[in-house]
């Protein structure tokens, strides 16, 4: 009998940094909010900025989530995603303008009905457009990144020009419905109602997406498809069909984001999707391509950063987001929550 080995196994707890590691991306949001609190002298303006940052982040998330899933699932990079944002905004706002009598009425129910109608029509329109876009533009260039980028940019140009054909080249100004105008005062800070609503809608969309992805069969197939598409196909699922579905859903969400963005800015132009694309790309990159959670965190970070910095130093607002992207990519080159293996 030999003696028991000297190196008895120890049950040591993981060090704090090891345990925090996986949560780091999530913790970044409160850290940024606290940093904002320290940097901004007045508490009330900090609160206002935090709410508007969160609202902006939620809207960017809604616009970006489809893009990240589409890439994760089918390795398709869609530079024309912004087109859905613009079309959604134009369709939705046109409906709102048509329902002018409902949006100007002081009744909350009528206002909400009008907004709901606008959102539904916009989502239907962009969903249908997404289906057509996938068929005509994206399908012939599967598996070819260079061509995908070129062709989707071409699609973006065509859609932008078509918007100008149908709605004219001038920007359209609009008023938010009665119930969404104005602000409420909380702890001395003026919080615009619309921004609170945007935060709420964003949370609902995120929760719904998480539910679908985590708790349903279709979500399981989508997640498995992102992890390893070939295996899912080998098991007998028609991944192409799933992909088309995700593309349509993503386009419809971009349309929703477009309507919300248009109501937020109170002006819409044919180029708004193109401009939103820049923030969307930053968000998708820092979140990690293919990850909905990463996209959500990234969007909130970008929204908060943009608002804080725009308050402290207006001139460097957009650069600050580039800085954020650089810092995060230095830390995690594949984005915060990488899902897709390097391809």
């Amino acid at each position, binding site marked *: 009998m030999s003696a028991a080995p000297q190196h008895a196994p120890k049950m040591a707890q993981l060090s704090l940094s090891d345990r925090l590691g996986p949560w780091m991306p999530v913790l970044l949001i409160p850290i940024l909010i606290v940093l904002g609190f320290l940097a901004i002298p007045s508490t009330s303006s900090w609160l206002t900025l935090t709410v508007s940052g969160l609202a902006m982040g939620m809207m960017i998330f809604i616009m970006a989530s489809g893009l990240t899933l589409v890439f994760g699932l089918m390795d398709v*990079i869609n*530079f024309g995603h912004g087109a859905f944002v613009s079309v959604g905004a134009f369709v939705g706002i046109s409906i709102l303008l048509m329902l002018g009598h409902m949006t100007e009425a002081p009744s909350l129910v009528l206002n909400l009905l009008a907004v709901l109608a606008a959102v539904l029509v916009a989502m239907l329109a962009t969903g249908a457009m997404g289906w057509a876009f996938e068929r005509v*533009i994206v399908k*012939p*260039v599967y598996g070819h*990144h*260079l*061509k995908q*980028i*070129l*062709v989707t*940019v*071409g*699609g973006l*140009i*065509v859609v932008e*020009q*078509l918007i*100008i*054909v*149908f709605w004219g*080249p001038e920007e359209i100004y609009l008023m938010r419905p009665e119930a969404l105008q104005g602000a409420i005062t909380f702890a001395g800070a003026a919080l615009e109602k619309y921004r609170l609503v945007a935060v709420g809608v964003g949370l609902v969309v995120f929760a719904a997406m998480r539910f679908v992805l985590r708790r349903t069969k279709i979500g399981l197939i989508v997640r498995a498809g992102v992890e390893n598409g070939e295996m899912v196909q080998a098991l007998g699922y028609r991944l192409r069909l799933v992909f088309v579905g995700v593309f349509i859903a993503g386009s419809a969400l971009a349309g929703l984001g477009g309507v919300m963005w248009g109501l937020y800015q109170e002006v819409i132009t044919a180029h708004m999707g*193109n*401009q939103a*694309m*820049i923030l969307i*790309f*930053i968000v*998708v*990159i820092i979140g990690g*391509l293919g990850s909905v959670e990463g996209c959500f965190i990234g969007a909130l970070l970008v929204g908060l950063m943009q608002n804080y910095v725009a308050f402290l130093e207006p*001139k*460097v607002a*957009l*650069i600050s*987001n*580039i800085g954020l*992207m*650089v810092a995060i*990519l*230095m830390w995690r*080159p*594949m984005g915060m929550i990488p899902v897709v293996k*390097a*391809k």
Partner: protein
Amino acid sequence: MQNRLLSGDMPRSTVLALILGAILLCLAFAPFLFPGVRSVDTAARICIFIVLVASYDLMLGYGGIVSFAHTMFFGIGAYGVALASTHMGRGFDALLVGSASGALVAAALALVIGLFSLRVPAIFFAMITLAVASAVAVPVSQLSNLTGGEDGLTFQTPRALGPAFKFGDELFGVRLNGKLLAYYFVFVGALVLFLLMLRVVNSPFGRVLQAIRENDFRAEAIGYRVVFYRVAATCLSAAIAALAGSLYAVWLRYVGPDTTLSMELMIDILLMVVIGGMGTMYGAVIGATLFVVAQNYLQNLMGAASDAVAAVPVLPELLNADRWLLWLGVLFILSVYFFPTGIVGRLRGARA
């Protein structure tokens, strides 16, 4: 001699050779063949865009790298000349300093972006360049005391390149003034840069780039440092784009965010490269010529067509002169699908 000048990259198609020869002749004698301010301006633009588009093709067509920051480099060159001329006074030394420093800054920036994006998946490169380019355009339009903001900068080029400078009487009915010299300054500069790029892409370096474009994994396996070649191509392309920007600034004697940095310009470049033909320098020549001529003259045609169908609904709107980008976009998508090698590829293929 001819072979040496073109670095052994002959047009390899009679039609293509004729078209290229015609373009060269037209550009070389543009002030005499097409007198008039507007047509000479068009010719100068064509020269500059040929260089700019060719430098983009160096990255896209030869290296397979998609960048959306090309106008940023173009703008850096243009602003370099503008700032140097504003602060050093009008003179050729200012032009030299401005364009050299512009090219250096552009190459350095390309190096930083290139090295940074090596850490991340290749697909990020296009997105990162898009974000960086739009971020750079913002301070340029905001730092109005340095860059003139949205209004841009108007500055003076050396006296010898201005219309007030006369060095003789008329020749074939064309006034021999500084504007003529400025045109030939642009033309010669563009020609030299173009031949230089033709040399680069037909060198062993260019061949390696093409190998990387076709199959980077294999190129790496053969023993080429893919990363080094990609970054080098990006830097070179950025420096040449900056020089094209300098030429543009010299020609216009003005720089502004809209003329040098806008996203529209980037899309124009993309259209020119793809329609002309990716992966050949001659594609840049044909694409740029076709595009600039179309930009200047096709619009009138479309306007006429729009008036002709005024009775039909929607059609006039679709044919409106301002909607020409719509049709180019459609043409762009079709050409990516059906003739990805562009006009030049078609012409060369027809012969074979």
